């Protein structure tokens, strides 16, 4: 059994080598397809990390009426815990607000005006599952309904822009990937058909010598799977190369480096293998059955 399998694998390799030119076309298409999918996967993988880093974008600043004392404002602050979608809150007293003002603008408001006009407030962080522009809007609206709250500020526009671009990148990558995926299946299937057509006399002879259908089909399936695996290896190389280039560019502008998502090679390897298998099954199925 092992000897037979080794023979069939060597037949698959021989077949791939014989049809190396059309196979190269299939392999490059698979590489392109998987690079697009890998790119989308890379964006997904980095999106989560980027959002954690941009946590301040999911911060809501709440301001209470200036006439409220710290104690009265704190009572209103405690109502925030009832709002759905909040992960943590921090009370900002009037004094703390003044010290923040001094730190950010370099002026002591109490010295300048002789009194502290700043209201007490709160910093609200949005829980993970609610970090979309629509949900943050709703949380802000809920907070605004609390009596004593005068203003609710957050960087909603930035969140929306960030979301939009990430969605375009991911969906664009997926759509292009699906188109390329269909193209790759078609090309692999055609390469296998060409390979089968070129070997039709050999196939006839094998049948006459007592070969079963699976014995005849398996080398072609192996040929397709090998195309998929080689394509996926090239795609992994291309993505890692792109990652290095992007990180090289990024480090000149921002203190942020893209990371390689876990299981990238496994993800692309599995996809390549399936792509090769589906493509070759289509080619073999239609040709050898008939």
């Amino acid at each position, binding site marked *: 059994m092992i*000897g037979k399998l080794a023979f069939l694998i060597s037949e698959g390799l*021989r077949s791939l080598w014989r049809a190396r030119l059309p196979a190269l076309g299939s392999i490059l298409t698979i590489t392109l397809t998987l690079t697009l999918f890998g790119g989308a996967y890379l964006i997904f993988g980095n999106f989560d990390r980027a959002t954690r880093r941009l946590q301040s974008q999911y911060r809501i600043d709440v301001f209470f009426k200036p006439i409220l004392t710290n104690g009265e404002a704190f009572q209103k602050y405690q109502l925030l815990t009832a709002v759905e979608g909040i992960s943590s809150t921090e009370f900002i007293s009037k004094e703390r607000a003044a010290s923040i003002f001094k730190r950010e603008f370099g002026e002591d408001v109490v010295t300048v005006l002789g009194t502290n006009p700043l209201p007490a407030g709160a910093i609200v962080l949005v829980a993970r599952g609610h970090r979309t522009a629509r949900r943050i809007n709703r949380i802000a609206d809920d907070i605004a309904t609390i009596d004593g709250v005068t203003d609710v500020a957050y960087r909603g526009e930035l969140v929306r822009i960030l979301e939009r671009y990430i969605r375009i990148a991911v969906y664009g990558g997926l759509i292009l990937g699906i188109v390329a995926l269909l193209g790759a299946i078609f090309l692999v299937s055609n390469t296998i058909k060409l390979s089968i057509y070129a070997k039709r006399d050999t196939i006839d002879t094998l049948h006459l010598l*007592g070969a079963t259908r699976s014995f005849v089909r398996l080398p072609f399936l192996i040929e397709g799977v090998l195309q998929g695996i080689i394509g996926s290896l090239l795609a992994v190389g291309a993505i890692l190369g792109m990652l290095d280039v992007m990180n090289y560019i990024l480090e000149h502008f921002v203190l942020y480096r893209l990371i390689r998502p876990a299981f990238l090679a496994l993800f692309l390897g599995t996809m390549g293998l399936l792509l090769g298998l589906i493509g070759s099954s289509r080619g073999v199925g239609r040709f050898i059955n008939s």
Partner: protein
Amino acid sequence: MIELRKTTLKYQRGPGVYDINFTIGAGELVFLVGPSGAGKTTLLKLMYADLLPQEGEVEVNGFITSHMRSKSIPHLRRTLGLVFQDFRLLPDRNAYDNIALPLHILGLQRKDIRERTYAALDDVGLIDRAHHYPRELSGGEQQRVGIARAIVKNPITILADEPTGNLDAGNSMETLDLLTYLANENGSTVIIATHDYSIVSKKRGRLIEINEGRLLD
């Protein structure tokens, strides 16, 4: 044993074979003779289940082809050694690999395959041509490789369709002698289809004559 019982196969175009009845016992040497288009190849194809009868039955080595599922056809063919007029060697494999192919199909161990293939190459006198490709061999040598490929798995029956059709007179007799000698050594039944009566007259064997798809008495 091979038995054809009231076997008929008609082609849409051209003649087929009609109401064929004969039995061939184990170890027999049989010449199936007749002019071109008489139905010899059709009879052989019925025996190795490349064609199935429309009427009657074909029984070969315990397999009744008309009742067989297509999945069983390879099992029937593994009991047969086939020799063709055009040799049907795989052009991208050398003599050794061509002969070893049926053994790979049977799933034999690598060591057994090696031993049996070299033995077969030795039997047909081509041990020094083991690594030559078909294009590097003469017609007679190619047919000897074809015979070695048929013999290597010790088949119950050898079916040879015009095995000397592409060879000159000298090579024809040599090939036929080799085929009958090795089959006899092996105890295989041999059926040789040929239109060449001169060859048949030089060998001792049973004669089945066919013309226009019907057996002659």
